[in-house]
């Protein structure tokens, strides 16, 4: 089949090119850019904005080196990603091309990367806990299969270490790693960790390193999530690790800026919420098929920044990492109520009681900074706070089972409080207080 070609590029900008007139390209369809004389393939690009006067494309490999004479060959298909079970254990770039120097992968099929919305009626209500061995998660913010949840952390926090630790114990058939704007060290760290934990053969890595083409970074989640979804449709339980979605949002901001879109907050496009939601909503427990769980990382300076703020409204909670600790106050698993009522009878109550006491303790801590927490009860609260931070908010200790973690909670309460001070019901106190 002879493909239609366009011989003149009228505009070359950062990541974008335009041609004059209407060559008949359809929205979101892919074209191939070829070196004018040699017909050597330079890059693929996608039509993003079409009028009868001009057509604009996002260039996957960046625009450096392109000229007005670069040829455009129309492929007349929307963007797809290759899929094959042979992708397991391998590394790919944001466009789904092999990136580990290994042999080419023969794809079994091409899948759409449009990320159509799953019909809500075929979603199961999530009910199955994923245990991590981390008390702050298992006891206080239980992770649930098919949940979408990010780690919120400052840029210098060990968020990738936490992500990797959660992945290592993952009860998943397939792990999809999607790294955007990563430093090489981070990429290698994940690869090493996944190898050491014996998970590498069930992992597919999609990686975009800092400095790689922005458009490839922008596309990466769609390619990775489409592959994840294909495994999910085939009945597999898939865990997707998305790091770092702030990098991704910043690429989105840059490209929106190149496209002259009117910015809303801090230069991000007004569609930031919808764009993030489209990706995170791929997480699902699918009726009659498998599931997709997404754990992301969102780096932030402040919780009010548009990226974490919008993410918080989209995801089903967040794990908040600060000073290397998983903070109870700002962490939340919205799906925990679906699983923590069926564990031990004290699970929910102890979670609420300890949280409430910790909030009081935080107040006492603030008071203590101005020398006001001088009464005996405030002193108790302060000792409780220290104990809690060291023993419960520490995510990198030895993994422990839920029951042991709950017992540990009782032990901490007993170390510091009278039973009536805990706000726990008499029934539970009678049942558990003296056991620990």
């Amino acid at each position, binding site marked *: 089949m002879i493909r239609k070609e366009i011989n003149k590029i009228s505009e070359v900008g950062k990541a974008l090119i335009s041609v004059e007139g209407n060559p008949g390209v359809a929205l979101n369809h892919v074209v191939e850019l070829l070196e004018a004389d040699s017909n050597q393939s330079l890059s693929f690009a996608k039509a993003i904005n079409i009028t009868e006067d001009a057509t604009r494309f996002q260039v996957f490999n960046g625009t450096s080196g392109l000229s007005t004479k670069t040829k455009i060959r129309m492929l007349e298909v929307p963007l797809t990603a290759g899929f094959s079970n042979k992708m397991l254990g391998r590394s790919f770039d944001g466009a789904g091309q092999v990136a580990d120097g290994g042999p080419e992968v023969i794809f079994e099929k091409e899948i759409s990367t449009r990320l159509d*919305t799953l019909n809500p009626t075929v979603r199961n209500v999530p009910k199955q806990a994923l245990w991590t061995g981390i008390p702050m998660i298992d006891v206080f913010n239980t992770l649930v299969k098919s949940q979408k949840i990010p780690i919120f952390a400052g840029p210098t926090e060990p968020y990738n270490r936490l992500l990797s630790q959660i992945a290592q114990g993952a009860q998943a058939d397939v792990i999809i790693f999607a790294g955007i704007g990563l430093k090489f060290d981070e990429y290698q760290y994940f690869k090493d960790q996944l190898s050491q934990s014996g998970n590498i053969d069930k992992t597919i890595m999609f990686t975009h390193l800092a400095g790689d083409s922005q458009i490839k970074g922008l596309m990466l989640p769609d390619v990775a999530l489409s592959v994840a979804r294909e495994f999910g449709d085939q009945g597999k339980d898939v865990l997707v690790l998305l790091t770092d979605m702030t990098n991704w949002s910043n690429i989105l901001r840059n490209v929106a800026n190149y496209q002259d879109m009117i910015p809303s907050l801090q230069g991000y496009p007004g569609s930031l919420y919808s764009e993030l939601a489209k990706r995170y909503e791929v997480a699902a427990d699918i009726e009659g098929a498998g599931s997709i769980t997404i754990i992301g990382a969102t780096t932030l300076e402040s919780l009010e920044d548009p990226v974490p703020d919008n993410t918080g409204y989209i995801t089903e909670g967040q794990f908040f990492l600060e000073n290397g600790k998983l903070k109870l106050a700002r962490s939340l698993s919205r799906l925990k109520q679906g699983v923590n009522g069926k564990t031990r009878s004290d699970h929910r109550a102890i979670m609420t009681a300890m949280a409430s006491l910790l909030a009081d303790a935080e107040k006492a801590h603030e008071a203590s900074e101005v020398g006001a927490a001088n*009464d005996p009860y405030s002193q108790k609260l302060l000792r409780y706070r220290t104990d809690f931070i060291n023993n419960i908010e520490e995510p990198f200790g030895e993994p422990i089972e839920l029951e042991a973690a709950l017992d540990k909670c009782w032990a901490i309460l007993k170390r510091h409080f009278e039973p009536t001070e805990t706000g726990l019901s008499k029934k539970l106190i009678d049942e558990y207080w003296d056991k620990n």
Partner: protein
Amino acid sequence: MNDISKKRTGNLISIQDSLVKARFFDDVIMGETAEISVDGKFLQAEVLQILPDPKNADAGIVEMQVFEDLTGAKIGDEVVFKGTPLSVLLGPGLLTSVWDGLQNPLYKLSEEDAYLKPGMNAPALDEEALWDFTPIVNVGDTVAGGDVIGTVPEGKVDHKILVPFSFGPCKVESIIEKCSVNITQQVAIVIDEQGNKHELKLAFRQPVKSPIPFKDRAIPTKPISTGVRVIDLLAPVGYGGTVGNPGPFGAGKTVLQHSLCKYAVADIIVMAACGERAGEAVEVFKEFAELEDPTTGESLMKRMCIFGNTSSMPVAAREASVFIALTVGEYYRYQGKKVVMLADSTSRWAQALRERSGRQGDIPGPEAFPMDIPDQIKGMYQRAGEDLGTGGSLTFIGTVSPAGGNFQEPVTQATMDATGGFWGLSQDRADAKKYPAIDPLVYTTSVYDGFVSWKDRQKMLTTLNEANDIDQTISTIGLKKVPVSNYIQYQKGLTIDFCVMQQDAFEKTDACTRPERLEIINEATQNLIDNTIDFQVGDLDDEQLKELIKHKFDELRQWWRDWNYSAKTEEELAKLPKAVDKFILQEEYAV
């Protein structure tokens, strides 16, 4: 007047995300819907603006928003204008339904594909279901828009079949006898004053952007029992009232909305899940089907319908979903039903308008929202209200998701201005895992007299306020310097906060408090507020005495919370005021 039987078309000249332009040569009506033919699929669109064509004086340009993904669209693709504005199909079968934002039935679509693809659609209401129609007008009667011609039972709801609201006076030429019909069959023929015949069916289409009229609008006065204590005590909402419910993420908006769905005393709940998580809508229609309606004892879904335009669905349909849901609410209000509509979240609706106006190149207002966003928000809430003429009401509770949790942002501000009530969720209370995180001191407003007297309400607020002030003092100068009497006042406030304002949404008995129980709680609360308590035993110094006071109040709070969880019988319920009386006298009460 346009001849809408004639096919009017245009062709695409510009495509950008969900915004397209087309050239036309005939005529286009502002706000009408259109279908764009892309790769053999027909995509739904709505006219936003009509402009001159700089290239062709004989033509015009129409700007449209498209409700579906446009991948594959090309310059020149055909647009067919439909002549009718965005509308909703109203008739029996609305209840228990789950649709997307454009009233496509999601269960029906799932038979075709697990994923929602552009161009997919299905009839909004089941066309095969049979309804037992009973006529109530006779041949020769004069009827007009909104008049009832018959009824069908829709579950336990008596569904009235109305003459479409757009109709002027008409004479009934024929009407069927009592029988079973589906929504596609004719039930009556009426003749208008110009002599034109019109066929009436059980269902008709109604434009969504102009409201269905009231017969006799009134100020809402009767409070709704929501089952949520802090609301029913301090910020009740009346039948026909409006409430804005803002909160940062994680503050518990969703849990509160679900509570209202489950426990608010109403005939019908219409839910617009607008741009929010799909999982939350799924929880409602999959889990609520198993729960009981507090008034009828039937499945909760039998009083509900849900528009699920969730966050990953096309943005343009988000705006539509809220108007479509509102119109369904108005329709049932016109039938005399007490309707509560929940829109979660109105911020996503506003953001959809922002995305669109940005693409249209409008000059942005604060935070890039359209300049007229306050007026649009007001206009939306204005459609709620009580109608004495029909006995129905439409209550509108909208959640707001302020960026950064900042209540100064434009949508929250406009909502505060537009609504009668305001349930603000506080980050601090949410962080302390207090549910509901509505801060009684800062963020409750209400124009209604609720389930307790205004005086009692004010006393509660004063006590909470004082406790809060004393708490501040303790934090700055330390407990030692706070007088014992103030410390007691502080403990009283803590007790009211912990045992009355906070509630456990996941504990069967505590999750919902009805007015009778609320009255008992109020009695105990008022007694605790009104009476002084002498805790002194022996001669304790201040510090020891405060420790004793704290211990005594801790015990009371534990006892009270246990009561919240367990008291059910009349005898058990009566124990609370008695216990508080004994506590005031410092006598033994824990029996």
